């Protein structure tokens, strides 16, 4: 049996016996991802619908009769107030409406009440817009004109994206971001345990005095951390997809429109998996390098937090502008950012052969370079015995 495999097996056995780590890294992502990802969306939807159905109190002043009737018909309770703005500010009404010198002014606690206020404002606005259209139409008819002159043509938008890309919008951003997060988090307990943890417990010295070459020691540790990272990532992505399926079962139309519908072909899944593993090899090697440098578990946790922010934050921030970025070989060759955009491309069925070659080739090179840096770190006595 190869020495690296003996070491990897031991590290994995240690990891699998740590129930807390298993729960945090493998089980919780499957259970919590659906909850975190889709429960808020569904909740907001339910609350918005509830707010639409609810009868809100509107403080009004100086409204024409026609508008008053239309507002009352739209499930709004009108309360005459000399100063509607004050009534709203003091919480005596959900919104206020004043008609002065030919214009309507709507008062609401927009910043304070957020979505709840927005729903009331929208209800009022819809009534006023309908009133406006009716008045315009009446005036045009009185002038002998057909109201349809105001709409000489109609505009419609058709989504001609491939079927796999339809409805994936938001997930194309979320999947790569969570993949990076899960890779970094998943490997963490193993990396901390096999580097600073071994130093702190005094087991590293016992291991290094065995007739096993440093490459085998490092590769065994890296392999175990990689398995933990891949397990955690697979669990997280599975949770994400499970959440999407569950949510689609509850409300398929709304979620597809919001970009929460994801259907992966086996090829796409394999592409995401290979990209994830290559990124994980890069991230785990960097974690090993910093982990072995730390004097203690606590110090290593500090380094890992910084590394996490350095790797995940830029990619996550770039995700917000992904739709505007021209994804070419140059971008795909950048560490972290490349795999992030590549997975986005895969999920939108836009990845081409050059993209595969550049992303996987550069990721493999970065992983090897990071592994070499970790090797240099492990081979320096002032690092290994820095305590």
């Amino acid at each position, binding site marked *: 049996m190869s020495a690296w495999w003996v070491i990897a097996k031991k590290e994995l056995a240690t990891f699998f016996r*740590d129930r807390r780590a298993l729960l945090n890294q493998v089980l919780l992502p499957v259970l919590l991802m659906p909850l975190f990802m889709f429960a808020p969306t569904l909740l907001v939807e339910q609350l918005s619908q509830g707010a639409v159905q609810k009868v809100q109190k509107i403080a009004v002043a100086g409204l024409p009769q026609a508008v008053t009737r239309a507002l009352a018909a739209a499930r709004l309770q009108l309360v005459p107030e000399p100063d509607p703005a004050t009534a709203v500010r003091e919480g005596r009404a959900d919104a206020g409406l004043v008609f002065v010198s030919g214009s309507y002014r709507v008062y609401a606690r927009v910043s304070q009440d957020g979505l709840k206020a927005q729903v009331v404002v929208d209800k009022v606005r819809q009534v006023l817009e309908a009133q406006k259209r009716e008045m315009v139409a009446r005036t045009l008819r009185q002038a002998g004109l057909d109201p349809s002159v105001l709409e000489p043509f109609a505009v419609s938008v058709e989504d001609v994206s491939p079927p796999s890309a339809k409805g994936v919008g938001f997930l194309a951003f979320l999947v790569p971001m969570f993949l990076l997060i899960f890779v970094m988090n998943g490997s963490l307990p193993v990396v901390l345990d096999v580097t600073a943890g071994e130093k702190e*417990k005094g087991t590293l*010295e*016992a291991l290094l*005095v065995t*007739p096993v070459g440093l490459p085998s020691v490092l590769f065994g540790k890296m392999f175990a951390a990689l398995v933990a990272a891949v397990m955690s990532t697979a669990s997280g992505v599975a949770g994400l997809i499970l959440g999407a399926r569950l949510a689609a079962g509850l409300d398929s139309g709304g979620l597809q429109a919001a970009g929460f519908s994801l259907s992966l072909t086996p090829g796409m899944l394999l592409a995401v998996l290979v990209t994830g593993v290559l990124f994980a090899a890069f991230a785990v090697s960097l974690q090993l390098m910093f982990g072995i440098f730390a004097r203690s578990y606590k110090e290593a946790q500090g380094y890992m937090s910084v590394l996490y922010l350095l790797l995940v934050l830029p990619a996550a921030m770039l995700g917000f502008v992904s739709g505007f970025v021209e994804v070419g070989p140059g971008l795909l060759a950048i560490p972290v950012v490349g795999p992030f955009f590549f997975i986005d491309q895969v999920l939108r069925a836009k990845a081409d052969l050059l993209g595969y070659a550049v992303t996987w080739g550069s990721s493999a090179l970065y992983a090897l370079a990071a592994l070499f840096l970790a090797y240099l770190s492990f081979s320096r006595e002032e690092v290994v015995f820095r305590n």
Partner: protein
Amino acid sequence: MEPGIEVRGLIKRYRKTLALSGIDFSVAPGEVFALLGPNGAGKTTTLRILAGLIKPSGGHVRVAGADPVREPMVVRHRLGYVSGGMGLYERLTGEEVLSYFGRLYGLDDRALHQRIAELDAIFSLGRALATRVEEMSSGMKQKVLVARAFLHRPRILLLDEPTQALDVFARRALLDHLETLKRDGRAVLYSTHVLPEAEEVADRVGFLHRGRLVYVGRVEEAKTRFSAPTLEHAFIRAVGEVEA
């Protein structure tokens, strides 16, 4: 005769600190050499250099006929090492720890099983074999640690505070086993600050103080040389002479 340990003019510098300033000693096969000194004297540094874990800044070292810097794998195959700061894997049982290290030393399943049974007989590992390290007493842990160093029948043994935390029975078993090792021609470098223990097991001693070996010789000669009733008194007087 197979070579033991040879140390000539060994120097180790950590940046501006001189940890070892040119020490010389040797350990012959079938001999127990006790390296004695307080914390910070340079004992652990010496042992780590002999084990090929750190590189010397100067001087020459041979362990079982090999150079730990140029041939670290050869040295490590022939070496058993217990250090005071060493620990064990918390979530493994004693048997799993021994199996893990045994496999790293190249033992197959049959040899491993047989060797663990032998070490169980010597050190009374008993319950420690089936108990997870996290549930072991410190004495049980130390027994497993010591047994780990003997797994591959090393020709050279570097034992740094090996009886620390051992109960009286296990301690006795280890000290008695040293006699067997001597008869088998193993070279043992025994580092401790428990001087009565060193007086019992060592053929020769070396007094290490602030990176300098201030005395090397037989136990009885040390007592005579410093007019001391015990090795402990001899050590204190030797250090006192240097300080003066």
